[in-house]
Structures are given as C-alpha cells and as structure tokens.
C-alpha cells in the first residue's frame, strides 16, 4: 500500500474515509451533542442541532479542509490555513478535540500512505487540526474538494446522530431518517465551499452556545463521550 494513487476508485476512497469503523476513535465523539442534551435539548431538537452545526462550526471545518486541500495539491504551506481555522475556532476545547482527532487520523494515514507528500507535509506540523489532516489524505488520494467537503459534513451529521442513539432512547431507523434529512444541507454546504482556495475566504460562522457547551463538557468528569 505505498502508491496511494494507483487505481483506487475515488468512491471507494470516500467510503473508506467516511467509515465509522476506521480506527480513529470516532466512537468517542458526540459532536458536542452530549452537553447539549445535558443542557436541556431533547430528541426532537437533534435535527435542528445538526443543521445549526452544518451552518456554523462544520461549515468552518469543511471550508478549512477544502482550502488546505488546495494548498497541499499546489505544494503551498498549510500554516496559514491552520491559523485561519484556529482564529475562527475560539473554543480551546473544540481546538483540542480537533487536534487530537487529527493526531489519530495522521497516525493511520502515515501507516497507509506513508510516502505521499501531503501526509508527510501535514505530519511535520506540531498539531494540525482535523480538517487539515483530512485534506492530507484527500490530496494523497486525489479526492475532489467537493467530495472532501461532503465527507466533513456527512461525518459531523453521523457523529451527532449516532451519539444521539447512545444518549437517548430512540429508534435507529428514525435517527437514520434524520441523517437522510440532513443530506441536502450537507450537499449545499459542499457546493458553497468547494471553490474556496484562500485562508481568508474561509467562513467564520460562530455558534456561541455550541462553543459554550463544548467548554462545559471539557471540564466535566461525568461524560460518556470525550467531546
């Protein structure tokens, strides 16, 4: 598994990267849903919560990934992309979560595609965020920007919805219905950010309540999910 570009269909690459069975500790994440439910959100609020994330924090993450992909594909330094993401992510808990997920992901990518320039370039950084780490894999495997943005959006929806299933008494088919219901929003998000190339173009949509919940959760000892 050294030549990453050798005849792997992009659909298969996307399935692989979106698969919850990937050993990157995705099961430890609730997309901040756990503190949101603790703060009083109910089952009926989950689809709205997912949409709010797609319009705010996940939009920032998807756009960061797309811009990082452009930089890596062009051989440019991703430092300014990381800095743009960090300035748009005021919550230290959310930055720490993203960077620890990136660490796990890069460990895996380093094993699977060790010789590719983007993975090497991003692994050389002190603590890249998850969007930049995903972009390294995408650049190594020739994924399109829109596909990468869809991956980030889809993963966030699935993370929140599958966490809901563990935190609330729900019918799994209903929850899958929420995921399906969010897909047009994911697709729209991807269409809106896929063309971005410059760090300063990354949207900066804040979500003060989600950011506050993320901080509260990071400081509690009573939790099922790490974030």
């Amino acid at each position, binding site marked *: 598994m050294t030549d990453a570009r050798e005849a792997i269909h992009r659909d298969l690459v996307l399935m692989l990267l979106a698969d919850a069975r990937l050993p990157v500790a995705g099961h430890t994440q609730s997309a901040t849903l756990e503190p949101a439910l603790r*703060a009083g959100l109910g089952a009926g609020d989950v689809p*709205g*919560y997912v*949409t*709010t994330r797609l*319009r*705010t924090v996940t939009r920032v993450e998807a756009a960061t990934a797309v811009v990082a992909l452009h930089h890596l594909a062009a051989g440019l330094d991703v430092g300014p992309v990381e*800095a*743009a993401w*960090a*300035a*748009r*992510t*005021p*919550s*230290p808990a959310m*930055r720490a979560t993203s960077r620890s997920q990136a660490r796990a992901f890069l460990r895996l990518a380093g094993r699977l595609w060790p010789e590719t320039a983007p993975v090497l370039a991003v692994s050389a950084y002190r603590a890249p965020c998850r969007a930049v780490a995903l972009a390294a894999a995408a650049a190594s495997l020739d994924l399109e920007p829109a596909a990468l943005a869809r991956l980030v959006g889809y993963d966030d929806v699935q993370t929140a919805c599958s966490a809901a299933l563990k935190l609330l008494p729900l019918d799994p088919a209903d929850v899958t219905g929420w995921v399906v219901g969010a897909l047009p929003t994911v697709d729209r998000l991807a269409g809106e950010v896929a063309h971005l190339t410059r*760090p*300063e173009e990354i*949207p*900066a*949509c*804040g*979500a*003060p*309540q*989600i*950011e*506050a919940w993320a*901080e*509260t959760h990071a400081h509690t000892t009573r939790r099922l999910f790490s974030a």
Partner: protein
Amino acid sequence: MTTLTPELPAGDALDGVSRTTIRLQSDPAGGRARIRLATGGSPQCPVLRPMLLETSVDRARISLVPEGAMLLAGDHLDIDIAVGAGTHLEIVEPAGTVAYDMRGRHATWDVRIRLGDGASLTWAGEPFVASAGSDVRRSTSVVLGPDARLALRETMVLGRYGEWPGRVRQSTRVHDDAGTPVLVEELSLDPVSAPHLLGRQRVVSTILLLADPDEVPAGVSPESRFDLDTGGTLWRRLGTDVHATLDHACWAAVR
C-alpha cells in the same frame, strides 16, 4: 495635549456615512500626546461625537456621545480609531444604543481600530439592543501592533424585554500587523437563527482581552473563558437579561 474637533470636508457628506475619527499620537518632542477628534459626513445621519474627558502625558479618556436619534434605518456610522505607539486610550459610552424597527431597511455600524507598538485601547461598550424589526450590520476590525493591548467589552441584546429579536450581522476581525489572524468571527443572529445559536438566551456579553499572557488574569470567570490560539482571551456569557449576564468582576480585572 492638542485637541481639534473640526468638521470633515463637505465632500464626505454625500456618501450618507457619519464618520467619527479618533487619533492619539505621542509627541515626538516628548511633550503631551496629541489627540485629534473629528466628526463629519451626512447631515441626515446621527453623529457619535467623541468628547475628551481626561488627558495626561501619554493617555486620553474619551466619551462617545450620540447626537441625534439612533439607530434608525439608513444610518451608517463609521468609527475610525488609531492609537499611536506608546499611547493609551480609554473609551466610555454614556448609555447603550437601541436599534429600532427598520421596516425592511438596515443600518450599518463599522469600527476600525489600529493599535501601534505598545499602544493600548480600553473600550467599555454599553449594551447594544436590536429591537424587533431592526437589521444592523456591525463590523469591528482591529490591527494590533507589537505589544499592543486591547480590552473591549461588548453586549448584544436581541430584542427589548418580551420582544422578538432584531437582526444583527456582526463581523469581528482581529489581526496582528503581520496579517496573522487572531480572532475572526461572524455571527448572524435573527429570530430564526438566534434560538439555535444562543440557546434560549437573548443577551451575549463579551469581554475580549488581547494582551501579554502574563497580564491575563488566571482565575477570573473560568466558566465563560475562551483562551484564543494565538494568545488573548475572550470571555463570553449568554443570558436572558442584561444585568445578570454582564460580568462586572471580569471587566474590573481586565480593564
């Protein structure tokens, strides 16, 4: 200290913008800092007039006093502040601002701040109330010189008591003078988005302190504290009423 309050040239009156300019600069000869305060622009637009309260060798204290009813549809206020190297500016406001029902139109409130090497700005903003039907585009852009210090308090209130929220699109962009971003945030709050972005709250109270890490007080309001990636701290509280949401202890510690 030299103080001038001239009206800007009439040419500016045509673009419908009310301008407020504040410049503080140290005296190259080593005397008192020089301050220039100016207002000008559209006669239809209300004015935020900077009134000098106090001065000393390297610092000035100013009150931003509104003249005329504000904030109404079509108002466009542009506040441009430059604090020169080694000088210190403090801004206070005599009262909060209410943005009224704009019936489909909007108002604009732009603030630009440049802080020179070792300069500081402390701005105790009073509550900004977006009444039902208001639509305000607020932007704050800051460029920080080396060792500059900014302490900025802002309180956004969505709707008067018992009222629907107005619409506020707030953009905050802080960079250092090399162009590295420190804090970039856009909040688009309206009756539909606000419940999702703010939970069941209607007041967003923030205190931003960009300063040397040693100057950021350690134990103050840890529950609402967001340490930024490049240094500096944002404290943000969400609440249902202004008095309970304002963090007076935090502001006293950072101002």
